[in-house]
């Protein structure tokens, strides 16, 4: 039985996690200091979702991958220069905020609208992918709302593995408490899958893939619709960096045996 999927990956850009991040309060609410100056990367868990999508598409000829991304156009362009060299996809760009302080409800509305506008998308074969959380808002709530808006009620979060069976059904491993996985079988698409880490390493840059992708990436960026996220009804009372600094006792020259005794005693303390 020939099976093919239409995989839409929702994923945006985040400030490079290795940068120093500092909040500032502006007229429209909190933001990152010098946000537009900070280097950006594809959100890590959305990246895993994209690579898993491309892997699945490669295994099932006739499948296709779209990346739907809401972010400042300039940042998207910067990040796509690298991401587009990783795996084949069509970009659907939305020009709007990618801040962690934007609300997932309105973000989901924008993403669902963009997905609904993809020409020729066969919803009966649709797998909606994304990271189970972002590295910015970290809410883990956007994908479910996008799914609801698209009428998809087979949803999975914290996904580490999808195995497609011969009959078109697929087995899903979702992270649950205690380092365990729940195993489920979904009869058929459409479904929402919020990815955790998965099992695939980041693909190497492939300039040929990049050249093919750029045929759709650049036009998509040029015609990216402007999206306003107004955070209706949401008010930030404060945003602060943690200030805690511990007075570290540095123990040098203590014999290993003595350190071990001290650690064992500490471990045993109530």
């Amino acid at each position, binding site marked *: 039985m020939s099976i093919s999927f239409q995989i839409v990956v929702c994923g945006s850009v*985040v400030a490079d996690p290795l940068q120093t991040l500092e909040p500032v309060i502006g007229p429209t609410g909190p933001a990152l200091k010098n946000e537009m100056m900070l280097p950006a990367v594809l959100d890590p868990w959305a990246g895993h979702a994209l690579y898993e999508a491309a892997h699945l598409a490669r295994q099932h000829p006739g499948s296709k991958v779209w990346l739907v991304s809401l972010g400042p156009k300039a940042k998207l362009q910067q990040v796509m220069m690298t991401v587009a060299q990783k795996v084949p996809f069509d970009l659907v760009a939305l020009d709007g905020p990618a801040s962690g302080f934007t609300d997932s409800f309105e973000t989901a509305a924008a993403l669902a609208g963009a997905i609904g506008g993809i020409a020729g998308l066969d919803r009966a074969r649709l797998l909606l992918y994304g990271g189970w959380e972002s590295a910015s808002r970290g809410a883990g709530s956007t994908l479910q709302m996008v799914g609801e808006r698209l009428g998809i009620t087979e*949803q999975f979060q914290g996904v580490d593995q999808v195995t497609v069976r011969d009959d078109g059904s697929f087995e899903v491993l979702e992270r649950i408490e205690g*380092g365990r996985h729940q195993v*489920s079988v*979904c009869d058929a698409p459409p479904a929402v899958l919020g990815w955790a880490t998965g*099992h695939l390493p980041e693909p190497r840059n492939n300039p040929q893939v990049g050249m093919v992708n750029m045929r759709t990436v650049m036009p998509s960026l040029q015609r990216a619709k402007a999206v306003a996220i107004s955070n209706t009804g949401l008010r930030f009372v*404060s945003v602060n960096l*943690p200030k805690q600094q511990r007075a*570290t006792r540095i123990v040098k020259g203590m014999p290993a045996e003595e350190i071990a005794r001290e650690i064992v005693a500490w*471990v045993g303390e109530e």
Partner: protein
Amino acid sequence: MESILLLAHTESDGTLAKPALEALAAALAMEGELSVGMVGAAVEPAANQIAGCGAARFLGVSGPAFGQSRYSTDAAAAEALCRASGAAIVIAPSTSRWARALPGVAYRLGGRIDTHVTHVTNLAAGDGTPAVTRWFYRQRMEAVLTRSERPWMVLLDAGCVVPWSAPGPSGAAAVESVAVEAPVTRTTVTGIQAPKADEQTIRPDAKLLFVAGAGWTKKQSDGAVHAAEAEGLILGFLRAAKASLGGSKSLVDLSGEGEAVLRCMTHLNQIGQTGATPRHPKGLSTCCHGEEPHVVGWRFVNQRRAINLDANCGWARGKADVLYVADAFEVMRRVNRLLEAG
């Protein structure tokens, strides 16, 4: 004062787990009129467990279809309970089950949701309106926020509130059954994959988090790599101390790339910027290196000690209570010996 619904799902034995009791304590602290909504194969044992909590109503959706953790059935049940209660604020524990289902329910109800909340109060906004505290940018900054949209769903992270405990023996609660037709679903839950008991390295309730860094896989003083011994020492400590294992991103990535490193370390163990930020009373880090972005992994660990050869390591200095400048192999060999003897 606004009406509040505590939303909880039962465990396989029909009772409520600790995160649900923590969410109950948080809901009671809000001092609004409290209803409790429960979902499970059967909900009476859970209702009886918290009969004395002072809730005005106990609502339940039960049946075999609702005993399993699955989006479509969980969302249908939660939606029905929210509508039946009419509550303005819905507080629920941030379990994998509710984290999957409740954002969709918030959409269905025209409400909003905040997840990974660490504190909920009537006081922080200054005008008596409810406000929640949560972290942004992967635990890099903490915000207090409030909303005017209702219903407002709040998923409370585990370990942030002292769980509610019954003042006396459990009673008998009158549960109002909320009728929900189980939705047609294409998803069948077939089981749970868990490591064997002796291979279990993630223990959310452990008193101690043991954090292993990439230094375990580097060349040691004799010029050789001792990955097998490192794994033996780490697993030996986890067994003896009943500790949970966390790993730095660099170490976990090495394992994922198929290098012969620590087989016990997977992405599930990863803590930090792109991993988990578990809550444990104590943390012992070994061979960890890095600066601020990586240190978020133990932001919610109370007492912290570190073993590291570098006295100036940013992971430990200013972040740990005690830094032992020593060889972790040497120290952990002796620690394990003492624990086994003790």
